[in-house]
């Protein structure tokens, strides 16, 4: 795992260290209908060393909608060169907002910046930029000394469908990174979901339900009904009012086209636990 992270890190560092990541000449063409940006003017502003001009340029890119993607290399260039904290924060935010994967590499090193606000902005942005570089960087960020970065990374890995990160997410959960529970619920295969379920009673109940919520509402193709019913059974065995209320709340949200078997198990458990039973309309 560590080896893999090191390789990923090297890729990220390499991308940042190479200076301007892509020539302006390699910009993607704006989509038809989008207002084209004056890239030369924006580049001049971002390289001016004038904070105000550069911030304005970033706002222009941010407000350009899909056309802003054409300016992604310019923002990446700013990140690669480095800038003061206000500009960095805005550039990371704008690059993340563009949602282009090529922004992941220049943003990733900022996950390890010494300024907390910079590295937290980087972690959030990477969830939007996606791609293998973002996944590797966020996996590494689970090991960060910054609790907020760890939490954002744990959440992001679920969003990015980073199944390989599950062992680290389990470890993080055991070390009280509660955001890992949701991601585990999003990513787990049946046997991994069962492993998660065994933590019931060992982890805070609200943390566990954040993961169960994901599991129970995932498609049957990903998590079979039997697995979901086992989880409902575990909650029923817990025998607490909290468990009853939680399942009642799940029942109230259960989709009309959801599994009837699972719904029956939930309703049975709600009845047994004395939670607020769902109405027939819910079905």
């Amino acid at each position: 795992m560590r080896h893999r992270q090191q390789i990923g890190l090297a890729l990220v560092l390499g991308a940042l260290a190479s200076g301007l990541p892509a020539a302006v000449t390699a910009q993607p063409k704006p989509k038809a209908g989008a207002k084209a940006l004056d890239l030369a003017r924006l580049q001049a502003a971002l390289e001016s060393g004038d904070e105000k001009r550069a911030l304005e340029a970033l706002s222009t890119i941010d407000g350009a909608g899909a056309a802003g993607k054409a300016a992604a290399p310019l923002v990446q260039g700013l990140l690669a060169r480095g800038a003061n904290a206000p500009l960095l924060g805005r550039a990371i935010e704008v690059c993340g907002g563009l949602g282009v994967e090529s922004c992941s590499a220049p943003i990733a090193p900022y996950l390890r910046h010494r300024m907390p606000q910079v590295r937290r902005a980087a972690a959030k942005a990477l969830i939007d930029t996606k791609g293998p570089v973002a996944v590797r960087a966020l996996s590494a960020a689970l090991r960060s000394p910054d609790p907020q970065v760890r939490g954002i990374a744990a959440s992001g890995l679920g969003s990015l469908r980073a199944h390989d990160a599950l062992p680290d997410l389990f470890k993080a959960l055991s070390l009280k990174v509660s955001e890992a529970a949701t991601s585990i619920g999003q990513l787990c295969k049946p046997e991994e979901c069962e492993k998660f379920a065994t933590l019931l009673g060992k982890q805070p109940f609200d943390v566990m339900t954040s993961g169960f919520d994901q599991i129970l509402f995932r498609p049957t193709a990903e998590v079979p009904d039997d697995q979901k019913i086992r989880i409902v059974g575990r909650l029923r065995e817990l025998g607490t009012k909290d468990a009853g209320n939680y399942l009642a709340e799940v029942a109230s949200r259960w989709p009309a086209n959801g599994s009837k078997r699972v719904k029956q198990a939930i309703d049975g458990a709600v009845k047994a636990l004395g939670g607020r039973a769902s109405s027939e309309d819910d079905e």
Partner: protein
Amino acid sequence: MRALAAIGLSLAATSCSGAASQAGRVFTANWQNDGGKGIAAVHTAVGSAPLAPGPGLAVGVTKSGLSAALLDGKGSWKYAGKVDALPTISGDVVVLTTGGEVVALDARTGAKLWSVSSQGRSLRGAGDDGSTTVVSLGAPGGGRSLLLAVVRDGKVTLKLEPEPEIGTPAIQGGIAFVPWSNQYVSAVDVAAGSEAGRLLLREQVSHAVNVSGKLYFGELSLIAFDERIGQATAGGATRVTLPMRELPGKPAWFTDGATVQPKSGTARERIRLYARPDGAAIGGGRFAATYFRVVMGLGATDATLNWVVTADSDVLGGAAAKGGFAFCTASGQVLLRDETGGDAGSVSLGGEVSGCVVQAGSFALSTGKPPLPLAQQIARALEARSADMVVAQRFLLRELGALQDAFVTKVLIDLAENPRTSPLLLEDGRQLLAARRSGAEHMLEALSKHYDFLTDTVRPPPVGPLADALAAMNEKRGATLLAKHLNDPANSADDIQRAARALDKLADSSEADELKTFFALYRATADQKELVSAVISVARAIVRVGGDEGKRIVRDAARDPLTHPDIQAGLAPLVVPEPADKAAQQK
């Protein structure tokens, strides 16, 4: 006694009941210095009288009384009765005060020999010559000195209540040697109740002690009761002293013999020196210093640290014996260590003790198991995580740093990485680590680790000190590892500064990417002077190893108004002009 009469000393025999009236004459301050003649005559008379060394014995104070063990492992005994002061072992007897009585026990068996009234006082100390025991008593807070001489059948043959505070006495050939006023030792004829001679010392004296059958007087150092005793006032006596050295807690060889020692060992009892006088020298060439759980063996002439023993609990008492030492711990173990610190076994007191006294007596240690190397002994002592050990650990750390063994580097790294290391020790350890010039492999291994929340690496390695050491050793293998640490926010700014400085010397093109990343991240965001310094060091390295691109990056940053002004100033001398600029300059 007969010998004294023969040399014509004026000794007035007196009964016990009338003895108290003699006190004024015995302990008078208006004594005429006789140039040592009196005490020399006393030595001539009784110096060769037999004085039993007694058995090697440890006596611990328990909740219910005493628990004792012979050091040779051939016997143990218990005594039921709560003592009110630390007991004393002298020769063949153990003396204690309990329930308003002074009690003497047979040292080998614990059998009660006699008891007499303590007159409402507690024990200060006692001496025994095989037939008579002299006991010094007083109030726990000081004052109310009382000297008793008691023969084996329990008859009190002398009772003096001197006005000055008297110390711990000894007795030989019927003459009690009683230290007082921190400068005198009165030789008191027990039978006559009068002073047969007096020793005037120019140094502190509160103890007269029987060391394996020979008498010594003193406190900070010891004066032997031998044929040169008459020259003591003029500095010509046989004097045994320990080498001067600042040791943890400033341990004392002897406590003040004129005070009652509490039954439970105080901090002073835990910080002590143990040495065996042998003529004018220290027997075995070693003395020992304790500091709570740590025992240090030191050279008798230069106090060089020879060995270190870390006990499982505080050392409350001890003694230097022939061939080594015995140390009594709070857990009730008596550790036997030979003169090299080798483990020569132990005896048990059967449970925890709150105070302890040890007499080496006639006991001699056999050679123990060969001890581990000194560096490993010190490492063990440094592992003890207890706030009251820090003073000794800082001392030992300095000793460790002076050793050239590569293992020392590993110990210092472990110390620096351990989250439980006290801040004082941590700083000392980091300084010593920075000064290391051996153990490069250990340094590289340490640098391969980073802070990792998911594992137990929750304190980053000591990057700064390692960087200093590796740079001084010109160890280029450290460059890549140091470069990775530049971009790790878990490292302190100080560590980053030192890593950057080392990379200025050690880096090559392999580290260029990490250097450039660091430069980009901090050239405009450095918010501490250490980081400013680090960015400039890194820029210097980039210019050296980063090729044309590296020179361009530094040049651009030097011109960029967003670059931190102090960094800009630092970059100016590093800027290599562009070819176009050069051409313009040439025109």
